C-alpha cells in the first residue's frame, strides 16, 4: 500500500524518459531553426558587404544594366548592375508558370474529375515520378532537344529565355499538377453532388463549383512551382545563354541570378568586390524565396477564411 503512495510522489522512470525525450526533440527542432538563421546570417553578411564595404549604391545595384564587377564604369564605380539577371529570373519564372498553369490544372481536373480511375492508375504515378527527376537531367534534355528546337523554330542561337522557359515548364509541370490535384481532391464530394443534383452539367460543376472552391489550393501550387523555377540553377544555366544583357526578345541570350551565381563563384576571390557582388545576388534569391513563402502562407490563410465563411 505504502509503496504505491511513495512511488506516486517520486519521479518515475517514465518521467525521466519523458523529460529527456522532450529535450532531445526540442533540440533537433532548434537545430533546424538554427540552420535557417545561420544561412541567412552568412549570406547576408557576404551579400551586404557589397553595399557597406564596397559602398555600392543599392539602387544602382538593382537598376544598373551593366554587370562587370571587375571594371569601373562611367560613373567611377564598378559595374554591378543586377537588373538583367533580376529581369531574366522573373521573366523566366512568370513565363514558365503561365504556360504550366493551364496544362497543370487541366491535367489535375482530368485526374480528379473526369477520369479518376485512369488518373489514379496512370497519371498520378507518372507525375509523381517526374517530380523526382534530377534537374541536371532536365538541363541535359534542354541542351539536346529544346535548344535546337527553339533555334529551328524561332531563330536565334536557341539559347535564351524561351529555351529556359520550356525547360522550366516541363520541370515544374509535375509539381504543380500533383499539388493542384491535391487541392481539387480536398473539395468535399457533396459540393459536386449538390451541383449535379441541381441539374448542372459536369463541366458547369467543375468550372463553377469545384475550381472555385479549389482556387486557394491551386494558387499555392502555382506559387510553389514559381518558387522552384526561380531557384533552379543548373538546368537553366545550361540553356539560357548566360549573357548579362537585358533580354530584348525571347530568343536572345539572357541570364538569371542563379546562372551567373554558379558560373562566377569559382572564378572570384573570397572577399573581393566581384565575390561580394555574387553573394548579393544570392541574397536576392534568398529574399525572393522568402517572398514566395509569405505569398503561399497568405493565400493559404485567405483560402481558409473564405471556405469558413
Amino acid at each position, binding site marked *: 500500500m505504502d509503496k504505491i503512495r511513495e512511488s506516486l510522489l517520486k519521479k518515475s522512470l517514465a518521467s525521466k524518459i519523458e523529460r529527456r525525450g522532450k529535450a532531445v526533440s526540442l533540440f533537433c*527542432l532548434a537545430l533546424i531553426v538554427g540552420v535557417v538563421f545561420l544561412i541567412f546570417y552568412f549570406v547576408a553578411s557576404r551579400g551586404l558587404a557589397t553595399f557597406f564595404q564596397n559602398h555600392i549604391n543599392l539602387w544602382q545595384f538593382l537598376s544598373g544594366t551593366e554587370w562587370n564587377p571587375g571594371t569601373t564604369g562611367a560613373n567611377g564605380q564598378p559595374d554591378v548592375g543586377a537588373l538583367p539577371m533580376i529581369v531574366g529570373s522573373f521573366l523566366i519564372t512568370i513565363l514558365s508558370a503561365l504556360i504550366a498553369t493551364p496544362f497543370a490544372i487541366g491535367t489535375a481536373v482530368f485526374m480528379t474529375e473526369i477520369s479518376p480511375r485512369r488518373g489514379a492508375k496512370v497519371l498520378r504515378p507518372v507525375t509523381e515520378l517526374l517530380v523526382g527527376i534530377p534537374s541536371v537531367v532536365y538541363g541535359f534534355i534542354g541542351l539536346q532537344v529544346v535548344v535546337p528546337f527553339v533555334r529551328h523554330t524561332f531563330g536565334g542561337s536557341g539559347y535564351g529565355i524561351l529555351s529556359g522557359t520550356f525547360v522550366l515548364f*516541363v520541370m515544374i509541370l509535375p509539381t504543380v499538377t500533383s499539388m493542384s490535384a491535391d487541392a481539387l481532391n480536398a473539395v468535399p464530394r457533396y459540393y459536386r453532388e449538390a451541383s449535379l443534383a441541381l441539374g448542372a452539367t459536369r463541366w458547369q460543376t467543375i468550372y463553377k463549383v469545384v475550381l472555385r472552391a479549389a482556387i486557394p489550393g491551386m494558387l499555392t501550387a502555382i506559387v510553389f512551382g514559381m518558387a522552384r523555377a526561380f531557384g533552379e540553377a543548373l538546368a537553366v544555366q545550361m540553356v539560357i545563354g548566360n549573357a548579362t544583357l537585358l533580354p530584348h526578345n525571347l530568343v536572345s541570350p539572357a541570364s538569371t541570378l542563379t546562372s551567373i551565381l554558379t558560373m562566377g563563384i569559382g572564378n572570384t576571390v573570397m572577399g573581393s568586390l566581384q565575390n561580394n557582388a555574387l553573394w548579393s545576388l544570392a541574397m536576392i534569391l*534568398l529574399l525572393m524565396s522568402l517572398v514566395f513563402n509569405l505569398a503561399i502562407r497568405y493565400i493559404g490563410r485567405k483560402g481558409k477564411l473564405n471556405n469558413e465563411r
Partner: protein
Amino acid sequence: MNAKRTDKIATGILYGVAALVVIILLALLGFILIEGVPKISWHFLTAPALAFEAGGGIGIQLFNSFYLLFLALLISLPISLGAGIYLNEYAPQNTVTSLIRTTIEILSSLPSVVVGLFGYLFFVVQFKLGFSILSGAFALTVFNLPILTRSIEEALANISDSQREAGYALGLSRWETVTKIVVPAALPSIITGIVLSAGRIFGEAAALIYTAGQSAPALDFSDWNPFNISSPLSPLRPAETLAVHIWKINSEGIMPDAKAVSAGSSAVLIIAVLLFNFLARWLGKRLYKHLTAE
C-alpha cells in the same frame, strides 16, 4: 442544349490536355532512356571515369552518390525525426510554433544553389573540411531536413490519437508512446517519405558542386579503412557524384565520348530515381500489410 455542348467541348479539351501532358512526360522519360540505356554496360557502371580518353565509366561517381546519400540520411534522419516528433506531439498551438513552421518551410523552398553556397562558406571554408564528402553530406542534410521533417510530421499526424491514449493509459510517458507506438505505426509512410527524399538527394547537383567538389580521385576498393584518404569510405576525400558528373561533362568534358557518357549517366540517374520510387511504394505497402495483418 448549349450547356451540354459546352460540357462536351470542355471534356474533349481536358482529354486533350491530359493526353498532351502524358505525351510530354513519357517522351521525356523515353528520350532519356532510349538515348542512355544502350550505353549502360557493366563496364560503364563500374569503371572509373577517364578525363581525356573514351571508354570511361561512372563507377566512382555512382559509389560516391550512394555513399553521400547514406551519410546525408544518417545525419538528417535522426534530426528530422526529433523535430517532426516535437512539432507534432509537443509543440503548443501558438505563434512561436507557427513561426517555427514558417522557418522550416522557408528552408524547404531555398534554392539549392544558395544551400550549396552556404555549405561552401560554412563547412568548406569556415570548418576547413575542404571539398569533401563530409561537406557534401552536411549540405545535403540542410537541403533534406525540411522535406523529411515535414513528411515525418505528416506521417505522425495521420496516426489516430486513440493510439496515443492507449499508451498514456498504460502509464507510458508521451515520449515512450511516440517512439514505441506512434512512430512504428507511422513507419510505412515515414519510410515512403525517406525513400522519396532519397531520390531527390540522389539527383541533387547544385548543392554539391561547391561542397563535395567536382573531382573523383581514384579509389582503392580493397582498402575499407575510413582513415585512409584513398579508401572509398574516407569522409574527407572530394567526391563528385553522378548528378555533378553529368553537369560537368556537359560543360567541361574533353573526353571524345562525353555525349555518350552524359546520356548514359542520365539514364542511370533516372533509373535509380525510378527504382527509389518503386521501392518506396513497395516498402510502404509491405510494411503496412505487415503491421495490419500477418
